[in-house]
């Protein structure tokens, strides 16, 4: 639901941090007491966020429509965020980064400054309810101070972001193509124009699945016409992917969140050659990076491995092979894991990559199914590739 990434330099990181410190001196916040208090209420598990949201919706019914019908995932997000905040409450710099991202991210959900007071009141009421006799004036003051810090950092980041970006972009689906049985490619026109780095992603909400946001990577580097390409794979039972892979999505208007993500070409360039490993629609961010490389004065050598279960799953191989013909610095190796009839490389993608030799002198960029990426990263690391050479996207707790 939220992400702490995608920091833009315009946002005043140091100012908020300074304010945090001043406040801490004025009203000392007992970190140990806060943690002890949280540990006590956290025992109640799901009851805690359940009470919180019900309290919030009864006191402020108008807030309910900002949330999806099912609140199950939402409750998990709230608890995760609280756990993170409480565990990092004495590490103000990291916490400020996290909260600033959270504040910016909440703009697309329609959160405004007044909501923060309402949330604070319900949070305190919830903590009080579950604390019982342990809710002393001191504990209450700790939590009040802690929440005020959280809200001030989040709202400050949101306000700063208002200067540079809309809360969300309108994105009209101008073209739709089914590339494989379960993969569709969407061409979307964002309004206003969206600036982003190749490899980044945006959260997308489809009109037929209100309040459900899922992250998708742009599959192209920014273009003159501003269009964005997305590769969407149908996930069994996936509410959003099902809406986006259906041809009825053509001409509809999506909502797009701010571009986020760290899977971007290292700047300044490392000078190393590139290894790109793409499983299925994990190809999208890597294709954007490939386009970026193609525009460089002196492109490094690039070896792209594109894997799928079956040959049909190599949905974009044609255009990749065209690029390989056009660019002498590019090698494309397709691989298929579940079809021995395939003429090219067969086996799991990490195996295929490992078979192709020593990559320790390369910068690696990987995207695709979580297990595949994890496996490939482990293989590259054990083969001597340094951690800073390995680039992956990690939405962590933000991915629903």
């Amino acid at each position, binding site marked *: 639901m939220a992400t702490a990434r995608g920091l833009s330099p315009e946002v005043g990181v140091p100012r908020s941090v300074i304010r945090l410190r001043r406040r801490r001196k004025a009203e000392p916040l007992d970190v140990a007491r806060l943690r002890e208090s949280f540990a006590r209420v956290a025992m109640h598990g799901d009851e805690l966020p*359940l*009470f919180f*949201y*019900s*309290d919030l*919706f*009864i006191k402020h019914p108008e807030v309910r*429509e900002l949330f999806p*019908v*099912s*609140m*199950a995932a939402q409750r998990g997000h709230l608890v995760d965020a609280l756990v993170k905040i409480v565990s990092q409450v004495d590490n103000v710099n990291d916490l400020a980064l996290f909260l600033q991202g959270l504040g910016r991210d909440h703009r697309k959900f329609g959160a405004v400054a007044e909501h923060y007071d309402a949330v604070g009141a319900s949070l305190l009421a919830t903590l009080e*309810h579950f604390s019982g006799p342990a809710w002393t004036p001191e504990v209450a003051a700790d939590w009040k101070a802690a929440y005020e810090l959280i809200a001030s950092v989040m709202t400050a980041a949101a306000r700063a972001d208002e200067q540079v970006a809309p809360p969300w972009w309108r994105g009209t689906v101008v073209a739709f193509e089914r590339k494989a*049985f*379960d993969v569709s490619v969407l061409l979307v026109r964002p309004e206003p124009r969206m600036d982003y780095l190749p490899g980044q992603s945006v959260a997308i909400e489809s*009109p*037929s699945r*209100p309040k459900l946001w899922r992250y998708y990577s742009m599959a192209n580097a920014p273009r003159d016409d501003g269009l964005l390409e997305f590769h969407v794979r*149908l996930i*069994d*039972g*996936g*509410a959003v992917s*099902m*809406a986006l892979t*259906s*041809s*009825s999505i053509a001409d*509809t208007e999506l909502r797009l969140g701010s571009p986020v993500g760290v899977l971007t070409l290292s700047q300044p360039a490392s000078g190393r050659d590139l290894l790109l490993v793409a499983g299925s629609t994990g190809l999208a961010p890597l294709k954007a990076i490939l386009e970026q490389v193609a525009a460089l004065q002196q492109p490094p050598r690039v070896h792209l491995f594109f894997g799928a279960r079956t040959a049909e799953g190599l949905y974009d191989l044609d255009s990749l092979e065209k690029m390989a013909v056009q660019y002498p610095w590019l090698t494309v190796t397709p691989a298929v894991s579940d079809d021995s009839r395939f003429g090219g490389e067969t086996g799991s993608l990490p195996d295929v990559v490992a078979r192709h030799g020593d990559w320790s002198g390369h910068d690696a960029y990987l995207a695709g199914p979580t297990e595949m990426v994890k496996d490939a990263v482990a293989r590259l690391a054990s083969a001597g590739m340094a951690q800073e050479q390995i680039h992956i996207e990690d939405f962590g707790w933000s991915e629903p």
Partner: protein
Amino acid sequence: MTTAWFDEERRLTPDELQTVTFPMSRLGRRGYDEETVRGFMGAVHAEFVRLVNERASLWQEVQRLRRRILAGDPGSDEHGVLFGEADAHVHAVRILSSAQVTADRYVADAQAYSSRVTEEARLRRDDIMREAQQHSDMVLEEAHARAREAAVSALNVAAPPLTDRERRAAQAELAYLRTYSDVYRAHLRAYTEGVLSSIEDWERKEAASLQEVANGHTDRRSIS
């Protein structure tokens, strides 16, 4: 399933769930497993009854509490703790929480159901594709064998001049092979077209149903 159940104005009753019927799928077409649908409807019915009962008892409880508060008779509860405003709020929070949990469960069930249906469709589609592949492999294999045979026999009989009988036999064999390959090609085409039209049919239905859902949402939004 018809989409009538998404009508917001109409309330569904447990009785209706028991009497609802589904149109049979067309002859020779695959449809949902009747037993599964029935089982699912049974579960929905039971859940529905439980909810109606719970709501009734909660409503009675609300009425009882309201009467007590209006009568100003807190009984032994001198400070209004048990039936005061704070207590009513906690009750309200509990009621809303249990309603939310029920809603979450419905969504989760629907999601699981949709996941199962999609997965089955995908597996079935993989099966159909594999069958078609095997079928076309077989046809190719047969054609190859026939062609090899024909080539070999042509070589063997090339040296001595063909007698009329042999020529006629060779021509007959050739005609047979042509017909054979035509028939197989026609079979393969019909089969492939059948598979394609099933997929198109499926896509059309999916698009239509999604459109309906999307329209439903737009309507609701414009009301609010």
